[in-house]
């Protein structure tokens, strides 16, 4: 099937972005925002007439090392920004799958993507102090500030985080940074018994420990991972080993742990021929999530303390089947990676509550009255 040509705009400044958006709104051309393109397929089907690329908004404008804040163009690859921060012993505490290191800060925020560090440092929305956005009518506006504590004005950045480009374009963000832990130690506990894993997760999650990252994986058998950082992580690791042993897990410990965590985050994405869905459940329901995973013949990684999981299944399993198997254990189920025919089944987001959807539609129509920002891509056809 022949498609009309999609033109790409690559603004180099926020005001160029505003002009580009305004021009597209004037002739009603639907648009999509594209960062590194690593999550461009997420969401419902949407056929834009134009793409606004953030590939030229890639500046680390400020890194205020002493204040531990930074101002970044939204197209800045996270990996590149992290290199800058690491020189001062700092990090932006976001570690989603980077997919060839292309993932940009704007794309990560717009998709609310995250990795194991979310356990301690929370989500992208919690690390953004200020945001500059361009709306489809060309309005260029900033909210928040460059200080780590601020309650002046509405928190527009939270609204844009996870909005998948349906409210407008993020051009610049101000973020809070954290110290890179001096050293890290990871404790791993393995078991083929979901009940033992559940008990270990409970004990560890309720202990007075400061866990940097607290993950779980299931693929026939299961594994709990807890990473400790700081100047004296061994003491905490020793306490964690005791708890995991008590729960009946086979316990090991390593300070050469980078690969373990890369595996965890990379498993959030599905390779060709597989489907990945993100699940929100209660932390205490891990066993039930595993049972559903087994029924679907899938594999699982997740943030044990948060109740967030990424489930992968072969694409031969129908999305309707995934939803029905998980309906009693996961409150939210969102399709991420999938072949086109699975996405075309149209069950990407699940059914939103009608009252909440009306409110979301009101927000959408106020921010994007022309309706050109990724129409149809988001929840409830927004």
């Amino acid at each position, binding site marked *: 099937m022949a498609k009309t040509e999609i033109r790409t705009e690559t603004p180099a400044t926020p005001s160029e972005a505003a002009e580009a958006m305004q021009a597209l709104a004037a002739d009603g051309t639907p648009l999509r925002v594209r960062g590194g393109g690593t999550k461009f397929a997420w969401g419902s089907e949407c056929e834009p007439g134009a793409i606004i690329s953030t590939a030229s908004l890639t500046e680390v404008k400020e890194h205020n090392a002493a204040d531990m804040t930074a101002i970044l163009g939204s197209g800045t690859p996270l990996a590149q920004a992290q290199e800058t921060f690491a020189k001062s012993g700092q990090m932006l505490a976001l570690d989603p799958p980077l997919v060839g290191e292309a993932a940009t800060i704007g794309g990560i925020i717009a998709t609310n993507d995250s990795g194991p560090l979310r356990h301690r440092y929370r989500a992208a929305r919690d690390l953004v102090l200020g945001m500059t956005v361009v709306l489809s009518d060309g309005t260029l506006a900033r909210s928040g500030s460059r200080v780590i504590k*601020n309650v002046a004005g509405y928190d*527009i950045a939270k609204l844009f*985080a996870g909005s998948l480009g349906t409210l407008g374009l993020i051009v610049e963000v101000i973020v809070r940074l954290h110290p890179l832990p001096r050293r890290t130690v990871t404790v791993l506990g393995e078991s083929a018994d979901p009940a033992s894993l559940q008990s270990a997760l409970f004990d560890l999650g309720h202990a007075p420990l400061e866990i940097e990252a607290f993950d779980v994986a299931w693929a026939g058998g299961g594994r709990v991972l807890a990473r400790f950082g700081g*100047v004296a992580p061994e003491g905490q690791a020793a306490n964690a080993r005791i708890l995991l042993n008590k729960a009946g897990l086979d316990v090991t410990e390593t300070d050469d742990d980078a690969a373990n965590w890369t595996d965890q985050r990379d498993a959030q994405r599905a390779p060709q021929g597989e489907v990945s869905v993100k699940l929100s459940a209660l932390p205490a329901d891990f066993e039930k999530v595993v049972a559903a995973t087994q029924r679907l013949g899938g594999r699982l990684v997740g943030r044990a303390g948060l109740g967030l999981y990424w489930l992968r299944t072969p694409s031969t399993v129908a999305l309707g089947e995934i939803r029905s198997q998980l309906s009693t254990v996961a409150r939210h189920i969102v399709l991420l990676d999938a072949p086109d025919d699975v996405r075309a089944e149209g069950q990407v987001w699940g059914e939103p509550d009608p009252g909440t959807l009306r409110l979301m539609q009101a*927000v959408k129509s106020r921010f994007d009255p022309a309706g050109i920002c990724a129409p149809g891509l988001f929840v409830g056809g927004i």
Partner: protein
Amino acid sequence: MDVAELVDELISICGADGVVSDAVARRTYESDGLLQYKVQPGAVVLPTTTEQVSRVVSLCHRNEIPWVARGSGTGLSGGALPVADGVLIVMSRMRKILEVDLANQRVVLEPGVTNREISMAVSPSHFYPPDPSSQIVCSIGGNIAENSGGLHCFKYGFTTNYVHGLEVVLPDGQVVELGGKEMDAPGYDLIGAFVGSEGTLGIATRITLRIVPVPETVRTLIAYFKSVGPAGQTVSDIVADGALPGAIEMMDNAAIKACEDSTHIGMPIDAGAALIVELDGPEAECEARFEGVVKNCENNGATEVHVAANEAERELIWKARKAAFAAMGRIAPNYYVQDGVIPRTRLGEVLERIASLGREYDLVVANVFHAGDGNLHPLVCYDGSVPGEAERAEECAGLIVQACLDAGGSITGEHGVGIDKKRFMSGMFTDDDLAVFQRLRCAFDPEQRANPGKVMPTPRLCGEVPGPYRRHPLEVAGIAERV
């Protein structure tokens, strides 16, 4: 329609003991924690259920009556200041703890539950970190409206980082359920937009929060310095070392003197600055870090470093800090407190500017602040009985806010904009920025009946087809101006 005409209907919704219409009794609610502003509400209701809140708000909606929600009334920006021709909806009778789910580390609450009660309900294993100084009385509903912080937010974050679910009565009376115990509900983060919206988007009637395990240990010290500069440098050094203290508080000489006079804990009254540092967390990590903190204090010339040897000594240190606002009574009968925030690195120069403003206006300005996150609380002391002094204090306080903005900071870190700081909003945000705020407001409340006259510096309408404010060509040419 006049509010008085609604009283019978309000009584039919909330019962006779749930409506205050008598003029004398209504005066109880004329101010919140900011006593400089007083407005007597047209009527006061004290609902006990979500249904009652929804019916009251619907009634206001149908009759085009504005309304203001109020929690415990401890706010310091006049955010719960009533409107004279409107209804004040007081949430303090909805104060049930609905569920404590320790297994999933969640609590479900009605909005009138006090901040302190939350931590008490989940102790001794867990606690709820955001802890504004008014925590004994302030309500969680008010904390949601203001996105409250507190002493521990540098490490633990603010209210917005802990709210997972809200039941909200929207300004048309409709009830919506946002989020829940589980994270990441698909769709826009309406909870993120609602928390900190200062009562202008609706009323939260049921709240689901995350709670966290109590840290294994706490270590606290107070260090004294000749002046504020080296104390500020110490804070930067501690943070640069990679420590994330549970709390870092600073007081200047005026605050030290007042606190010592009222608490007699033995603070040296000639010290230029006092720095309180508290580390909490796992034992081994705290111990290792604490040595570094002590060294940082010494390296920056601390004249004395006192480490709390036990819980009693720790409480004494905090008693001095928490007495600061009340102790100002020893300097002057009234004070005006500001809430500006600056980048931590600009501390020295901004404090210099505040001191020079104090001299210029011939007023004592005592400084107490959350040093980790750069949130200043300058207390401009004055005597309201001296003609003109209150105005002078207010002007001086305004210039302090400006100094924070000039340093790249914010006009408010935790007290909110309310009625008191809205005049500074245009100094922090452009017209286009404010117009985008307005779009969010209009999505929730197109008739703008929820807490009208707060947050935004000038009244704005919600058009049917929203667009940002554009300056009229006559304005651009300087021929006409917007009133």
